[in-house]
C-alpha cells in the first residue's frame, strides 16, 4: 500500500517495531492522575511502556481539543466528553496518507487503545507539541497561557557520553524533576516547591520533553521568568547531576551564561617578549663592546711594532748569527734573509 501511494519506504537501516498492537506509551502520567485513573486502566496496559527504538517525531497535530476540557484544570478526567477512540488518531508517528488503515506500518501507529485520561491531561499541561522553531502564534490559540510557562529541554546523552551513555527512563525523569524542584526552592518565595509540582510531558526519543512547574495549589503554573532565573542560577548543578554540559543539556529559551576567558593581569606574551628582548639587547651590547675592544687593540699594535724597530736600531743584537746592524741600515724595509729565488740560483 505504501508503494502504491508513492510514499518513500523507510530507509533500510531503521529498525522496525514489532508488529503488534501493544499499547505503546505516552509519557508516564503525572502521579496524581495515575492514582485517579487506575480503574480505567486494565492492569496489562499500564506500565507496559516499551519504547520503540525508531525515531519518532513529536507531533500531536491531530488531537482535537474540546474547548471546555481545557478551561478547567481541575475537571476530573471522566467528565470530559471525549470522542470515541476510533475517531481519535493520535499520531505519534508521521502519518502516511492511508485512510483508516489499522496496519502497523513501521512509521505510524494508529493508537486506539490509549488511556483516555492522558489524551486530555498531557495536552493541557503542554503546548501543542511542535518544534518551537515552527511554532506559530496561531497554533497557540487553543492552548492555555500556561504553555508560555513551559520550557522545552533537549538532552544529547549519547553525544556527551558515547559508550557510557545511560538510558533515559523514569528514574532519570524523577531526578530531573528533583533538580528543577531544587532550583525552584532556592528562589525566595518558592521554598515549598515539591517534586510533584514539576510536570514533564512529551518525552521523545531524542531525548526531549517539555516541563512546567505548578504552584502548590496545582492551579497555576509558575511564571516563566522565575523558572528561568532559577534554572540559570543552578545550571551547573543540574548539568553535573546528569554528567552533561551546557551544550548537551539544553534548555531552549534559557540562554546560558558563557564562561569568560581567564585574563591574567599581565598578558603572557609580554613576559616572553620582555625576556627575548633583554637577551637580544645584552647580546648586541656584548658584540659591540668586543668589536670596539678589538679595534682598539688593532690600533695599538702598529705603534708597538714601531717601538720594536726603534729598539733594534739602538742596540746591536745578534740573532741567529746575523747582527741586526746590516738589517738596520736598510731601515727594516728589506730583509736580507729572504732573497728572491732568481738571485740565488745561477741562471741557465
Amino acid at each position, binding site marked *: 500500500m505504501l508503494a502504491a501511494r508513492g*510514499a*518513500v519506504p*523507510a*530507509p*533500510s*537501516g531503521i529498525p522496525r517495531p514489532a508488529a503488534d498492537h501493544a499499547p505503546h506509551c505516552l509519557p508516564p502520567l503525572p502521579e496524581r492522575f495515575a492514582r485517579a485513573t487506575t480503574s480505567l486502566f486494565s492492569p496489562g496496559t499500564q506500565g507496559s511502556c516499551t519504547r520503540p*527504538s*525508531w*525515531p*519518532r*517525531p*513529536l507531533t500531536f497535530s491531530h488531537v482535537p481539543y474540546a474547548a471546555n476540557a481545557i478551561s478547567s484544570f481541575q475537571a476530573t478526567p471522566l467528565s470530559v466528553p471525549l470522542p470515541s477512540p476510533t475517531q481519535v488518531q493520535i499520531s505519534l508517528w*508521521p502519518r502516511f496518507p492511508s485512510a483508516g488503515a489499522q496496519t502497523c506500518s513501521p*512509521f505510524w501507529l494508529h493508537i486506539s487503545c490509549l488511556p483516555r485520561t492522558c489524551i486530555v491531561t498531557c495536552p493541557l499541561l503542554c503546548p501543542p507539541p511542535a*518544534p518551537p*522553531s*515552527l511554532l506559530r502564534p496561531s497554533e497557540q490559540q487553543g492552548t492555555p497561557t500556561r504553555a508560555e510557562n513551559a520550557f522545552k529541554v*533537549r*538532552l*544529547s*546523552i*549519547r*553525544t556527551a557520553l558515547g559508550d557510557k*551513555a545511560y538510558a533515559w527512563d523514569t528514574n532519570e525523569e524523577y531526578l530531573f524533576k528533583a533538580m528543577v524542584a531544587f532550583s525552584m526552592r532556592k528562589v525566595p518565595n518558592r521554598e515549598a516547591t515539591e517534586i510533584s509540582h514539576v510536570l514533564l510531558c512529551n518525552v*521523545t*526519543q*531524542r*531525548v*526531549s520533553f517539555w516541563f512546567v512547574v505548578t504552584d502548590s495549589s496545582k492551579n497555576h503554573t509558575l511564571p516563566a521568568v522565575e523558572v528561568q532565573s532559577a534554572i540559570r542560577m543552578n545550571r551547573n548543578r543540574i548539568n553535573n547531576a546528569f554528567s552533561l554540559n551546557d551544550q548537551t543539556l539544553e534548555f531552549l529559551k534559557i*540562554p546560558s*551564561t*558563557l564562561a*569568560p*576567558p581567564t585574563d591574567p593581569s599581565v598578558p*603572557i*606574551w*609580554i613576559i*616572553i*617578549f620582555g625576556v*627575548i*628582548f633583554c637577551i*637580544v*639587547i645584552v*647580546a*648586541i651590547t656584548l*658584540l*659591540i663592546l668586543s*668589536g670596539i675592544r678589538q*679595534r682598539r687593540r688593532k690600533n695599538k699594535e702598529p705603534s708597538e711594532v714601531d717601538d720594536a724597530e726603534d729598539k733594534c736600531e739602538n742596540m746591536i743584537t745578534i740573532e741567529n748569527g746575523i747582527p741586526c746592524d746590516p738589517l738596520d741600515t736598510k731601515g727594516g724595509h728589506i730583509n736580507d734573509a729572504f732573497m728572491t729565488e732568481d738571485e740565488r740560483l745561477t741562471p741557465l
Partner: protein
Amino acid sequence: MEKARPLWANPLQFVFACISYAVGLGNVWRFPYLCQMYGGGSFLVPYIIMLIVEGMPLLYLELAVGQRMRQGSIGAFRTISPYLSGVGVASVVVSFFLSMYYNVINAWAFWYLFHSFQDPLPWSVCPLNGNRTGYDEECEKASSTQYFWYRKTLNISPSIQENGSVQWELALCLLLAWLVVYLCILRGTESTGKVVYFTASLPYCVLIIYLVRGLTLHGATNGLMYMFTPKMEQLANPKAWINGATQIFFSLGLGFGSLIAFASYNEPSSNCQKHAIIVSLINSSTSIFASIVTFSIYGFKATFNYENCLRKVSLLLTNTFDLEDGFLTASNLEQVKGYLASAYPSKYSELFPHIRNCSLESELDTAVQGTGLAFIVYTEAIKNMEVSQLWSVLYFFMLLMLGIGSMLGNTAAILTPLTDSKIISSYLPKEAISGLVCLVSCAIGMVFTTEAGNYWFDIFNDYAATLSLLLIVLVETIAVCYVYGLRRFESDLKAMTGRALSWYWKVMWAGVSPLLIVSLLIFYLSDYILTGTLKYQAWEASQGQLVTKDYPAYALAAIGLLVAASTMCIPLVALGTFVLHRLKRGDAAPVA
C-alpha cells in the same frame, strides 16, 4: 695597507648562507598554491624545466659575477662598465624596499610565537560579546582564526584610506625583529656565517617533524591525493608555464644583489658551478617537500571542517525532527535526508536553506597563498591538533628562521656595497653602518604596523620587486655576456677556478635566459595594462569577509613611484656617468 676582504670561514658557510637566503617563505606559502592552481602534480613539469633552463644558469651567473669581481653589486657592475653601475644601484634600492616590508612578516611570526604559549590558543576561541551571552559578532561571521589575524593582530581598517594609528604591540614586535637581524649582521660575515648554520638547518628539522605529524593526521591523504593528482590539461595553459618561470625566478632571489654579495666573500678558487647547482636543487626540493607538508595539513583541515559540517547538519535534523540522539551518522545521512524530504515536505523545505551541502571537494578547493595561508589556514589546522601549543611554537619558529635567513641576504645586499665604498667606510665602522640601515628601515617599517598597514604591505609585496627584478636581471645578463664579453668572462672564470665553462651555460646565458626574461617582462606589462585599474582586497568587519576595492589615486602613485625608483636607476646612473665623463673630458682637454 689595505684591509683584506672578509671571507667565509669555510665553503659550507657560503652554501648555507645561499640556502638560507633562497629557501624562504615563498617556498612554504606560494609554491603549494601554484601547485594547486595549475594542475597538482603536473605543475612540476614546467617548474623543473624552468629550473634547468632559467634558474640554474642565472644563479650561476650571479655567483660567478660576485666571486670574480669580489665586490658588492654596485662595485661589480662598475667594474664591468661604469655606465652600468646603475644596475647595482637598482639592486640596492630594491633590496632596501624588500627589507623594509619583509621584516614585518618576522614581526607577525614573533607575535604569533609569543601567543602560542597560552592554553587555549587565543585564535581557537572567539571572545565573548558585551553581555556574555554569545560570541563577538565579527568572530561569528568570520572564523576565530580570521578574527585573530584581522582584528587582534592587524587591527585592520576597512580601507587603505583610513590610516588609523600605529599598533604598539606590533611595533614592539617589529623593533624586536630588527634587533635580531642587527644582532646577526653586526659583525659581517663573521657573525652571519655562524647564524646561517641555524637558519638553514632548523627549518628542515621542523619540516621533517611536521611531515611525520602531518602524514599521520586524520584526512591527510585526502589532501595529498587532491594535490598530486596530475591534471595534464593544465600543461597547455600558458599561465602554468609563466608562473613556473616567475616562481623559480623569485624563489631563488635573483637580482637583489644578495647572491653577488655572498659570493664576493668567497675564495676566488671555490667551485661556484657546483654551489649553484646544489643551491637551486635544494631550493626546489624544499618547495616540493614543503608542499607535501602543506597539503597533508590542508587535507586534515578540510576533513575536519567537512565532518564538522556533517555533524551540524545531523544535529539540525535531529533537533527538528526529534530523531534519536546518535542515530544520524555520516553513512545514513543522505538516505535519511531523502526520506525526511518526502515524508515531511513542508517542514523539510523550511529547513532546507540551513542544510548546506557539505562537500569535501569544496573544502579542499579553497586555494590560499601568502599571509592568509601561513597565518589563517595553518593556525586553523594547528588548533585542532593535540598539544596544539607545541605545534604552534614549532611552526612559527620555523617561519621565523626562514624569514630571518632571507633577511640576512637582503641586508647583505644593502650593506656590502656600502661597506665596499671607501667614502662611507672611512667615516663609519661596519657596526654603525649596519645600525643605521636597520634603524632607517625600522622607522619606515612602522608604516606597516598602522591599521591600514597590511594594505601597504600588499602593495610592496606585489609591486616593489616584481617588474624591477626582471629588468635588473635582464640587464645583468646582457651586461656580462655582451658588454663585458662572454669570452672574456669565460677566460676569467677559468683562471679563477681552474675549470672550463660548459657550452650549456654559454648557450643559456647568451640566448635562452634573456629571451625568457623578455617574454616574462612582456607578459607582466601586458597583464598590468589589460587589468586596467588595480584592485585590492579589504577586510569588511561587518560581513566578516574580504571585499574588492579600487586603489585610490595616491596609492597608485605610490605604486608607480616604487617601480620607477628602482628601474629608473639604470638609465639615470648611466646618463649621470656619461655626463660626468663628458665634463671630465671637457676639463682635461684644455690641460692637455
